[in-house]
């Protein structure tokens, strides 16, 4: 396919190469169906100012990029990086870019398993919906139950999920099943502004709004019995998942560092193909400072999800009489992040700063970062669908390590603006039509529900099938929603 300066060729089933052109240091690589790629081409043809193909190309122009500028099958336009974008840079010679992390630092998904079956939840569906709605603070302006002072906020930024466990929200066992054990080292709170901390101290343990949610789901189909068994999953089993990030702290770190990195880009004479790709050499003082601030954001989000996960357990205790230990954590993943990781490039092990913007880490079997119980299978990859549709749990693979630095998609990807979604759907009507399908939804405002209508997103099944076919991750189970609290 060719449009303007963009030339695309399917080099393997579901793998499209964006030909290296002037200025690019590496080629682009898009994982998708022909239709997904055609959609990207159509955006360029239509002259849309906001378009993913130029963003994939632009990331390929940045210093130190390794192998290829990647896009996962849920690709759509983002800020600087496309959503579904993965860019790995040599830690010695490469850069760290704000757009590769985004404002919602460590937005991610956390899933707990329960001993309940679908029929158990159907008997008390409204009760669990209301219990979750009441116990988990959500929506714009909501405040959390954990109130902190300045010193304690610094502890959250350093200790992450460990801090909230020490406060009684969960157990030490939970930490083993969080990516990076819920805490990345090297987070220095002095690199986070007082304004960010002032905003956050009331927000620890809140869900936020937009596309954030807390869902009760059941396993609808098992694709891989061995992997499902290792993960503790079986057909009809009930699980609950939440999707949220670092809240105001992450947003403030992003905005604080926009000007900082714009100045660094100028200082180090980095030619920016797009003004949104502000960055600094990773090893520079500025790059290391930003990375340390990002780590604070990462830890804050892990703390947040740990707190909410544990609050959700309390709702289940109240309605079903379960105990905390009946609801262990399956896994907690991040899909907006920059991690320092070791990967093989041209036969040699290298240290890379891997940016995943709306992309999930999907490490394959044997990696020491994966909990022992899952190491033979690979890392759980938790991919949320949209409100009222399926979500999936997959596992990471060696192929993903080889092709994509151990990465996979993160969700379905939007195809319609919020304005358009609100014109097409009404929140109340949506709630009623989902209820007819047996899915109870409660949100904090009707507009928010309409904005998140399933029709505003790509079909998640297509995204998942690309991951499975290309080997970036392999399907373990499909889950369907029973109850959804929308932020």
């Amino acid at each position, binding site marked *: 396919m060719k449009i303007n300066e963009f030339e695309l060729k399917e080099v393997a089933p579901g793998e499209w190469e964006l030909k290296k052109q002037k200025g690019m240091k590496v080629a682009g690589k898009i994982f998708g169906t022909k239709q997904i790629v055609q959609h990207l081409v159509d955006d360029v043809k239509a002259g849309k100012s906001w378009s993913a193909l130029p963003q994939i190309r632009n990331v390929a122009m940045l210093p130190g990029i390794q192998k290829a500028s990647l896009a996962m099958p849920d690709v759509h336009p983002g*800020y600087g990086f496309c959503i579904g974008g993965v860019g790995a840079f040599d830690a010695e010679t490469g850069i760290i870019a704000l757009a590769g992390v985004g404002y919602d630092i460590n937005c991610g998904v956390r899933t707990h398993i329960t001993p309940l079956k679908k029929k158990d939840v159907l008997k008390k569906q409204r009760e669990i919906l209301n219990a979750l709605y009441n116990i988990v603070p959500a929506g714009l302006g909501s405040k959390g139950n954990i109130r902190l002072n300045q010193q304690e906020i610094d502890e959250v930024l350093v200790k992450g999920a460990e801090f909230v466990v020490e406060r009684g929200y969960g157990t030490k066992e939970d930490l083993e099943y969080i990516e990076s054990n819920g805490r990345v080292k090297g987070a220095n709170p002095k690199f986070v502004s007082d304004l960010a901390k002032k905003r956050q101290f009331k927000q620890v343990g809140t869900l936020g709004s937009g596309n954030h949610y807390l869902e009760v789901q059941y396993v609808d189909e098992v694709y891989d019995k061995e992997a499902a068994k290792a993960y503790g999953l079986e057909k009809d089993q009930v699980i609950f998942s939440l999707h949220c990030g670092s809240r105001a702290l992450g947003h403030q770190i992003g905005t604080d560092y926009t000007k900082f990195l714009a100045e660094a880009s*100028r200082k180090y004479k980095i030619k920016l193909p797009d003004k949104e790709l502000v960055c600094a050499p990773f090893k520079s003082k500025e790059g290391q400072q930003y990375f340390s601030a990002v780590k604070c954001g990462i830890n804050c989000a892990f703390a947040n999800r740990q707190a909410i996960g544990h609050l959700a357990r309390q709702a289940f205790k109240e309605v079903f009489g379960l105990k905390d230990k009946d609801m262990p954590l399956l896994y907690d993943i991040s899909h907006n992040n920059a991690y320092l990781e070791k990967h093989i490039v041209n036969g040699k092990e290298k240290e890379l700063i891997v940016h995943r913007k709306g992309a999930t880490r999907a490490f394959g079997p044997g990696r020491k970062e994966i909990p022992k119980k899952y190491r033979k299978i690979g890392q759980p990859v938790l991919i949320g669908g949209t409100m009222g549709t399926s979500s999936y749990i997959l596992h990471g693979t060696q192929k993903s390590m080889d092709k994509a630095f151990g990465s996979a998609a993160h969700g379905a990807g939007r195809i319609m603006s919020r304005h358009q979604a609100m014109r097409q759907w009404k929140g109340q009507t949506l709630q009623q039509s989902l209820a007819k399908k047996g899915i109870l939804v409660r949100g904090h405002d009707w507009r928010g529900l309409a904005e998140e209508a399933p029709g505003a997103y790509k079909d998640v099944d297509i995204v998942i099938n690309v991951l499975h076919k290309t080997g970036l991750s392999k399907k373990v189970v499909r889950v369907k929603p029973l109850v959804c609290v929308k932020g």
Partner: protein
Amino acid sequence: MTYEHFEHRADIGVRGIGKTLAEAFEEAGRAMFEVMTNIKKIKPAKKIEFEVQAENEVELLIEFLNRALGEADAEGIFLSKFKVTILNDGTPILAATAWGSKITSGTEIRTEVKAATLSQAKVEKKGNKFIAQCIVDV
């Protein structure tokens, strides 16, 4: 002077239009808070003040909007009125006073704005009007 929103696939565009650059910025601020609430119902009861500077006017707009967002959130308020002064002798500096009121259980809540971004950010003069716009990440 006036503000408006413009379409965007995943997020929302905010645009301020004014007789002066400062007015356009003020209106862009109002457009941003209108995403989060009905600003007509927000009384100018509490005042905040801040200053930002940047390398150019586009970056200044983003700095201004993000600072307003951050300061308002820290105080637990929504803002509905702005008074902006811009000095530009090479490196633009902006001083802002903004008014709003506390978010309560009775406040209309719409969509949270995470940040103003450089995406489609523009500051320009069209005819006898100034326009300041950008996409806000929601």
